[in-house]
């Protein structure tokens, strides 16, 4: 049996650069690798990886395995799994880290079942048990109403990590590392799905993930209109973006792209203003990383007040326009 050692991060690119989640995984992987006194490797697969391999080194990788192939232009499970499976079999890593992203959610379970190992998804915390050299994996369960710690003895130890749960290292372009171009024969006859069309639905303006301020509305708004008026006015004033909890997205009041929560986007702005949101754990899972949470809700018992730093109890129709009006004066004044 092969000896399993080292940490492998399955990286992702975004707009030709290293994706933020990959920098976070490298930050976390570096700590685990140092604890184990083992190496930190990163896989980058795309049609053209370019300078992202150097970025991966600057963020902590010792070796970057670069797989370039025309079939890897967009994430496609049946192609990517061939690359990941082949590299994992070649390297026999102790730990495989992926992001809890569109790609990680799709690829990690397939790969774990194919390799016959176990997987813990959506981890918030990872550490190495010094004695056993096994990975202690902490993840939220019951929609965030509890947390569970899992351990597994099957190799490789596979996990996906929630975005923004880990901090990247400071970028250091003087770090030394090795870029290893790697050839994988991809059998395109094994591809059983075909992307016919890609449709963008992103709202115009600031992207939710990049917005320093998010004004988020919930079921209590009762319909689509307040998102376009009351909430948007406040967001515009603060150069922020409008988001929503799951019910408004499910009801079609706003696009799914605005959905923040366990199964939507995970955000961590400086200021998060939750309006008419009860604060179910499934929602707060998407925003607990925010620096300051402010809640406006007519129910003083709403769970969101347990997460917030400042709150107002009252109807949003009355509270929010007054807040926006007064802020406008204060900012101008």
């Amino acid at each position, binding site marked *: 049996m092969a000896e399993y050692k080292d940490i492998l991060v399955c990286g992702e690119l975004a707009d030709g650069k290293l994706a933020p989640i990959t920098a976070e995984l490298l930050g976390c992987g570096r700590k685990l690798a140092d604890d184990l006194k083992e190496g930190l490797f990163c896989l980058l697969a795309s049609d053209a990886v370019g300078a992202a391999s150097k970025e991966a080194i600057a963020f902590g990788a010792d070796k970057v395995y670069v797989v370039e192939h025309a079939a890897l232009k967009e994430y496609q*499970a049946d192609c990517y799994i061939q690359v990941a499976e082949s590299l994992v079999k070649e390297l026999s890593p102790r730990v495989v880290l992926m992001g809890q*992203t*569109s790609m990680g*959610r*799709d690829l990690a*379970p*397939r790969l*774990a*079942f194919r390799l016959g*190992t*176990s*997987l*813990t998804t*959506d981890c918030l915390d990872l550490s190495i048990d010094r004695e056993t050299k096994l990975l*202690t994996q902490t993840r939220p*369960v019951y*929609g965030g*109403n509890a*947390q*569970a710690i*899992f*351990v*597994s003895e099957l190799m490789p130890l596979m996990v996906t990590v929630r975005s923004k749960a880990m901090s990247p290292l400071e970028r250091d372009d003087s770090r030394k590392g090795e870029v290893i171009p790697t050839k994988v024969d991809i059998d395109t006859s094994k591809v*059983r*799905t*075909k*992307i*016919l*069309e*890609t*449709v*963008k*639905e992103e709202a115009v303006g600031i992207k939710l993930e990049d917005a320093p*301020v998010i004004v988020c509305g919930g079921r209590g708004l009762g319909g689509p209109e307040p998102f376009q008026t009351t909430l948007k006015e406040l967001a515009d004033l603060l150069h922020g973006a409008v988001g929503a909890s799951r019910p408004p*997205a*499910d009801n079609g009041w706003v696009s*799914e792209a605005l959905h923040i929560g*366990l*199964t939507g986007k995970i955000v961590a702005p400086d200021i998060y203003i939750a309006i008419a949101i009860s604060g179910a754990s*499934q929602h707060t899972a998407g925003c607990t990383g925010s620096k300051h949470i*402010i*809640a406006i809700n007519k129910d003083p018992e709403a*769970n969101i*007040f*347990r997460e917030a*730093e*400042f*709150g*107002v*109890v*009252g109807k949003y129709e*009355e*509270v929010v*326009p*007054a*807040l926006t009006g*007064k*802020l406008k004066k*204060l*900012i101008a004044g």
Partner: protein
Amino acid sequence: MIVCCKQVPDPEAPPAVFKVANNKMTLPPDVKPVIGQYEEFALEAALRIKDTVGGKITALSVGNNFIRDVIKKALAVGGDELILLEDEAFDGGDSWSTANAMAMAIKKIGEYDLIFCGRQSSDWDAGQVGLGVAEILGIPAVTLARRVEVTDGKARVEQVIPDGYHVVEVTLPALIVVTSGLGALRYATLKGIMAAAKKQPVIWKPADIGLEPSQVGAAARRSKLDKLFQPVKEAKCEIVEGDTAAEAGANLAVRLREAKLL
């Protein structure tokens, strides 16, 4: 069509009722179990295909002590058959043992065009079983589907991506993992409820799907639960007040400026 369902504690119950004791989640008896929210979307996806092109829907679930009224909802809304892998031995499974039992049951069912699963269970939220079943059966899978149509032996799926969606075509048989955005599960009609009351679920034990009790449930787990706990949260919210709601809103603006947040 086969729809995989799970009976879970109502995830919409208020957070305060979720209490951990002895590494187990305990809920008061008034919190009723339900079919997981994403499995309800999966059922609806299958029912819409039945509406348009016909077909038979078999609901499949694995566990122990199913509440008949809860799980039979799958029949009441329009499912044709309900198969329960029900035995003490199935208790306490993880993603691996659950997916393996489901896959063995599906092999026994034999013929199918589409398998529908929810994106993640509403209790453990792992999001692995659907893809695991597809891997074991060796069939293609499309995840995060919010619309599914079938034409000419292929399924066309709208797959949610962070900033929009893909239209994906997949050959059949295939497994589809369903997310929200598809629309809520339809209500059961009175006729549906009456018909469901007359039907009995088919019960399979581990031996019926060719597995030993040691190959299912808790005994077959690949990942071990070390600890279940609830992090203590300190409530530290400062409630800003005013004579009217509008005044409180204005006072909040002042307070946020004072605190140099905005």
